[in-house]
């Protein structure tokens, strides 16, 4: 995977570039709007990590330009939350994801992986994983051959996991998806729900949980 990193801060730029290279991604790091424009012109990147506050202008401008000329790369916006009016502003301009500073590298990586593997099970009506089936139309869930009763939230959470199999979902991603919350909920709501869902998806005598914790990042289906 080839990644273009547009970030004016030297320390963050260095850190992220190095981190990406450590997990065998190719990363090109540029520090201004102008350089980014030139670099992106080659169309060779799978993902562009775009910081909003650049010394020579707003990254959102650049994003609008790219989307106008149908640049195929996925764009992940990296910015402090209050730097843009609303994260929707960025997504409306055609960003594929949004990560707020201060971010964790694990989360950045998880999101990059999600971006590349998006476009998968979006159109199916029955989602399956191991011996779990979830029907989006009838909202029926069967696990291990038996019907499973889930609350609205549990259903939404499970659906989110099944839409993203083998992908790490971060707590922020989950909170934003299920609760539409702007920032912290002052609670460990996500963990509590995952724990509850796990409890319902546990078979007698089984040790491996259906939903695995990924330390410091979030959760993934196992």
């Amino acid at each position, binding site marked *: 995977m080839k990644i273009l990193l547009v970030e004016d*801060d030297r*320390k*963050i730029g260095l*850190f*992220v570039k190095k*981190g990406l290279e450590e997990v065998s991604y190719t990363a090109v790091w540029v520090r201004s709007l102008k350089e980014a424009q030139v670099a992106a012109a080659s169309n060779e990147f799978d993902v562009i990590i775009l910081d*909003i*506050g650049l010394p020579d202008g707003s990254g959102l401008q650049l994003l609008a330009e790219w989307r106008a000329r149908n640049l195929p790369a996925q764009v992940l916006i990296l*910015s*402090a*939350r*209050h*730097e*843009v*009016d*609303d994260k929707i502003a960025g997504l409306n301009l055609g960003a594929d994801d949004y990560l*707020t*500073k*201060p*971010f*964790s*590298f*694990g989360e950045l990586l998880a999101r990059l992986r999600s971006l590349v593997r998006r476009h998968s099970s979006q159109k199916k009506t029955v989602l399956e994983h191991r011996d779990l089936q979830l029907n989006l139309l009838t909202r029926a869930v069967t696990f291990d051959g038996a019907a499973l009763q889930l*609350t*609205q*939230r549990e259903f939404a959470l499970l659906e989110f996991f099944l839409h993203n199999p083998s992908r790490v979902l971060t707590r922020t991603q989950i909170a934003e998806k299920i*609760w*539409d*919350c*702007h*920032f*912290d*909920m*002052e*609670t*460990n*709501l996500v963990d*509590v*729900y995952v724990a*509850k869902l796990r409890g319902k998806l546990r078979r007698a005598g089984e040790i491996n949980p259906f939903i695995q914790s990924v330390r*410091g990042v979030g959760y993934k289906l196992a």
Partner: protein
Amino acid sequence: MIPLRTSLVVFYAFAVTLTFTLAVGAGFWFIRQQMLTGNDFLLDAESKEIIARLDQIPPPINATKIEAALREHTENDKALFYFQILSSDSQILYHSPNLGAEALTNLGGGPEKHTLRLAPFGLLRVAEYQTPAAQVQIAMSLRNFQRINESFIRVFLLGVPLIMILSLAFGMALRHSTLRPVRLMQSAARRISASNLSERIAISPGSGELTALAGLLNDMFDRLEKSFNQAKRFTADVSHELMTPLSVIRLHSERLLDDPDLPLKYRHAVEEQLQETLHLAQTLERLLTLAKADSSALPLKLQPITVANFMAQFAEDAQLLAEHRGLKTILAWNDPGCARLDQGWMHQVLFNLLSNALRFSPVGGTITLISQCEHGEWIMQVSDEGHGVPADRLDEIFGRFVQIVPRSEPNSGAGLGLAICKSIVELHQGHISAHNRTDRPGLVLTFHIPLTSATEINPDGVTPLL
């Protein structure tokens, strides 16, 4: 205050009707005076002739002589005039035949003319003239005058309501055209919100009062836009300048923690450093939210939302969170009402209130959440079973960095959660308050948010002024 649109029409109709009434009244009064003057003039002219004839009668004067002198004349004028001649001792000497059996009242002399009613003839205008030998009374019928009087009353009775109706109709048309610029200004002003502050009211050419008003409003929008933009730029700058170094700290701390070779004695320090960094970022985030809310630069996506559905969703979260902390919950909400809410931010408010209650409730305690829609308001109450707050500090708890419990206790937050609740509730045109429970120790936080009627949701959220 009576709205301009009503007072304008009422005033217009009143003015037109009053003008009409006065004009018709004055016209009639004038015609009436003219007619009476004309009548009186005719009476005077007639009297001259009669007196001249009487003067020709050789004294002593008596009924037969008068009869002879006046017969021809009265016969000729019988359609117009009635005559009666009295002797100096008020005996009727002559009585014109057209009077029949009736007699004219003696008016006691004097130059003025009188109007009297004599049953068979209706109103009569009567004049008296004194000659040395006799008193002459001449009367004229006012039948024509009366007819005009009656037709005036008809015109008046029909005309006033008609004019009133017509002037109301014209008034409404006038209102429509007069208030058009005001309506345009209003809709422009309504369109201008935090998201499109650069829009302005179109100013029509000319120098009218409304143009001046539009100019003033636009100046005000200029100033608003400037302060909005300043607030936005400030939060954006602060955000960028502080979150970027915090990112660096977080990235490095997490990397250190990932390193299995990190000695345990450092591991704790780094963990603490990471925790404090996140806490700092969170506090900063909240402060910036408050700063934006203060300058109304926080964009709310208001949508009509059924409170019961919203509560049903939240109930599940609340129950689960309370259960997780070993607390019980009582949840109740009544029939649906509909309010214009930003779902994300309202969730934030509910979670903040809930986490506040969770923090202060002893294990095994009960948190009570009651949502009611009544009297046009959504009223939400969150009660805990903690120690409550001293009565003199109840107002303070929505302030910034205010700690209800001493800061040293582990479960104290940054002291911004309730301040954010207050800001967000107020951005929803509501208000929030705190009081202590009366049945037992504990704090009750209550917010009120106005409901909208689900059937007539106005996309602007504003009732039309005109």
